[in-house]
């Protein structure tokens, strides 16, 4: 039997990135993926004959460093094409459009304020940017390289200058609402600009904690690569990652689920030495690297009998309930959005910050809102392969749909949600219903079941201050290594977090190769 240096569990983008780095350094690497297709939450699949879509529907802060390191351009990924305008939909058809740095549809005061706002936010985002690709040191660590990453963050902060540094420290944990209110007047603008700080987290505009930090994380791609669907779409990114990994010698087995991680013992304690597949086949390797979420990795694959009690308790208490549902529509023609010549932007339906807050309030208590807020993309406008000629796919992220629905997720609840969401879209695109060939709604519970991600959570586990940096997912497993030697984490549940960014996979490989 072939022995591997590393086995990667899961072929999401982070698993593939980690595998590529390891293989490029000379390791023999095997990637095992339960699903038939690669990409995890970014994989593409047919949801209706001839119509394809992916869960993550746009790429915005994918790391340019990783794209360069893994030579993704020569594998077909063009990180600089197809950037989408953000459109704040208005019920009266006077939409707000943000294209690059050009903001239209708002009063000159807001337009001007936006310039100033963007300047300072982009400076903060750039300042943080290197940090996302570093390992955050353990508290009490005295390893120089680890300490230097703190030092460099401190230095970047200092280089901002005193005023900007103070402003950063004031702003980064501010509730999103305060940041918006102090900068802008226009309700739709405030809601639209808040969106990227909120989506995927259990946070609303008035929540303290770190929605501004989440926004800065998403702005780390820089101004020129705003949200985009390239001509090959999200599908193209995953295909390029796969192709780059294969070129580096990575072996990928899809349709192969890891049942358990094999844990043995040596003089120092426990060691992961291999994996058991569903059919009980065992494959051995020196490193087992899991891109599955932390709860599922530790509680299902490792098993509590191999873990310490307090550590287990911290893993169990991770907040993993997802709050984003997806709607996919197969359309026989392009719908007409009143007031828009072409629905080729990332369209946000959230009339004001209260609308977002109220939708969140419902979700907090286990219900979904009767006035859901959402982000809509028609990716088939860029990626023609997603639908038959002339036909289209609509993909929507619906915010604040609770994983734990109080009345339970049954067929009726799904149908209600689906109808509600289409009702809302219909207000902006009156002809939408006449074009629908098929509709699919995926709740966080569905996402958990289909993609094997606990809670169907966007970031695998909540992106919030208590679970960030040297606490992500929790101390004892926050530097990609775990209490079990030879076992590593490389998925969105690690620093820096989720989204198609690649940081966890990149950083984990560096720690494994240390």
């Amino acid at each position: 039997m072939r022995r591997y240096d590393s086995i990667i569990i899961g072929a999401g983008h982070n698993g593939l990135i980690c595998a590529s780095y390891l293989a490029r350094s000379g390791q023999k690497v095997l990637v095992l993926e339960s699903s038939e297709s690669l990409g995890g939450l970014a994989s593409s699949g047919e949801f209706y004959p001839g119509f394809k879509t992916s869960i993550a529907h746009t790429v915005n802060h994918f790391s340019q460093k990783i794209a360069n390191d893994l030579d993704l351009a020569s594998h077909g990924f063009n990180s600089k094409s197809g950037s989408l305008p953000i459109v704040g939909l208005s019920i009266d058809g006077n939409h707000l459009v943000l294209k690059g740095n050009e903001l239209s549809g708002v009063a000159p005061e807001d337009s001007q304020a936006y310039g100033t706002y963007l300047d300072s936010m982009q400076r903060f985002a750039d300042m943080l940017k290197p940090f996302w690709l570093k390992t955050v040191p353990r508290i009490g660590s005295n390893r120089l390289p680890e300490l230097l990453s703190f030092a460099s963050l401190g230095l970047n902060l200092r280089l901002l200058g005193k005023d900007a540094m103070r402003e950063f420290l004031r702003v980064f944990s501010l509730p999103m609402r305060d940041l918006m209110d102090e900068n802008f007047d226009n309700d739709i603008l405030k809601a639209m600009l808040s969106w990227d700080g909120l989506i995927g987290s259990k946070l609303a505009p008035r929540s303290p904690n770190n929605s501004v930090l989440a926004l800065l994380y998403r702005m780390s791609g820089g101004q020129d690569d705003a949200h985009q669907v390239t001509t090959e779409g999200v599908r193209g990114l995953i295909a390029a990652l796969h192709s780059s990994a294969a070129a580096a010698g990575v072996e990928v087995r899809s349709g192969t689920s890891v049942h358990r991680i094999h844990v043995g013992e040596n003089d120092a304690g426990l060691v992961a030495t291999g994996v058991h597949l569903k059919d009980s086949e065992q494959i051995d390797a020196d490193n087992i690297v899991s891109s599955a979420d932390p709860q599922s990795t530790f509680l299902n694959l490792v098993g509590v009998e191999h873990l310490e009690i307090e550590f287990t308790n911290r893993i169990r208490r991770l907040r993993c309930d997802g709050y984003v549902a997806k709607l996919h529509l197969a359309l026989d023609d392009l719908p007409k959005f009143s007031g828009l010549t072409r629905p080729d932007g990332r369209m946000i339906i959230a009339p004001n910050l209260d609308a977002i807050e109220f939708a969140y309030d419902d979700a907090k208590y286990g219900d979904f809102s009767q006035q859901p807020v959402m982000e809509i993309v028609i990716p088939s406008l860029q990626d023609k392969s997603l639908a038959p000629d002339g036909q289209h796919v609509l993909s929507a992220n619906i915010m604040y749909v609770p994983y734990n629905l109080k009345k339970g997720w049954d067929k009726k609840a799904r149908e209600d949600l689906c109808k509600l969401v289409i009702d809302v879209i219909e207000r902006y695109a009156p002809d939408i219903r006449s074009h629908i060939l098929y509709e699919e709604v995926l709740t966080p519970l569905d996402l958990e079941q289909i993609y094997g991600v606990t809670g169907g959570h966007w970031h695998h586990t909540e992106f919030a201050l208590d679970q960030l940096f040297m606490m992500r997912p929790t101390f004892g497993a926050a530097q990609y290594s775990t209490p079990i030697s030879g076992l590593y984490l490389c998925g969105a549940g690690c620093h820096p977090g989720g989204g198609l960014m690649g940081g966890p996979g990149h950083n984990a490989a560096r720690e494994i190769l240390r």
Partner: protein
Amino acid sequence: MTNNSEAFSGERLKQSHFHPRLAELNIRDSWSSWNGYKFANYYYDAEYEYFCVRNTCATYDICPMQKYVIKGVDAEAMLNRMITRDISKMRQNRVTYVVWCTDEGRMVDDGTIFKLASDEFMLTCGSPCSAWLEKSAFGFGDVSITDKSDEIAALALQGPTSCTVLRKMGFTEIETTKPFNIKHFPFHGDTLMISRTGFTGDLGYELWVKPELAIDLWDELYAAGANYGIHPFGETATNMARIEAGFIMPGFEFNEALKTVHFEHDQTPFELNLGWLVDFKKKHFNGRSALLQEQKKGPKYTLTKLDIEGSKPAEGAYVYSNKRCSREIGYVTSAMWSPSVKANIALAMIKTEHLSGELWTEIYYEKELRQYSKVARCTIKDKPFWTPARARLTPPLEN
């Protein structure tokens, strides 16, 4: 005034299932509390009670002790991952002494596990630990944990005449019960469980019955024991007996790790000389890798039994490596003049590296309101100070 007493009435101490008899016998009204129960320091005189334990027999109310029943197919695996000892080879109707640790290998508590059936155990310990048990059970399929602390009446009967008294009560063949064994006897249409266990280092038993039968048990026991010097003993006498036996006590030898604030103000089993309870050959258990490291580098301190010159108890004293008392190497955790051993004994935490050298202690004592101090040489004892043969023999020798 009435308002006030109503306001705090919920804070009144609970009464043990034996309380009516305990109260009657507590002629000094010297009460303290244990886990919310009214609990006697002593009933008549601590020394007298101590001598009953050593020379006749005496009862100790263990209703306030925590008792958890852990049941289910995975109960054994769950407990084995929590404690440091291996219970996988334990037979039914046996009791074993165990400790459990935090992830860092610091001691949470000690206690005993009773194996009642292949899938049923009872854990007893000094402090409530349901939160820890719940955390420990998470992820194990079939385990249920029930806090039975208030639902079992338990009484320790300790001392050389204890076996005879139980036989008098009609529990024939009790003398065939080996140390740490359990036997069940029919009692008033129900069952009385008797284990040969205790906290005095002497011959003794613990009796477990449902609360409704507590008073019957007491009365029959005291009737049978009338000619055998039976008497209740409280906390003070217990403490004397357990020091002679070399048993550790929370608040003296160790701090429960979940309650300490300062770094390393708690202890590892190795420091407490309980390395024999840590079984690295069994599967993973909590604190294992930390304890492996500790075993490799050796514990910083070691709990040591000391025989000290003179007769003044070395309570709260420091231990030094020289007679001038200029180099401090440890501290006394418990100390007493032992009437049975006729020696000035103590338990002390001493820096392991100094165990082979000279040991001195400076003892402070008071005489008619005047403070005195004296320096005394200490000698290390390897065996418990008090280990009568009757405590180990089956049938026990009786006098």
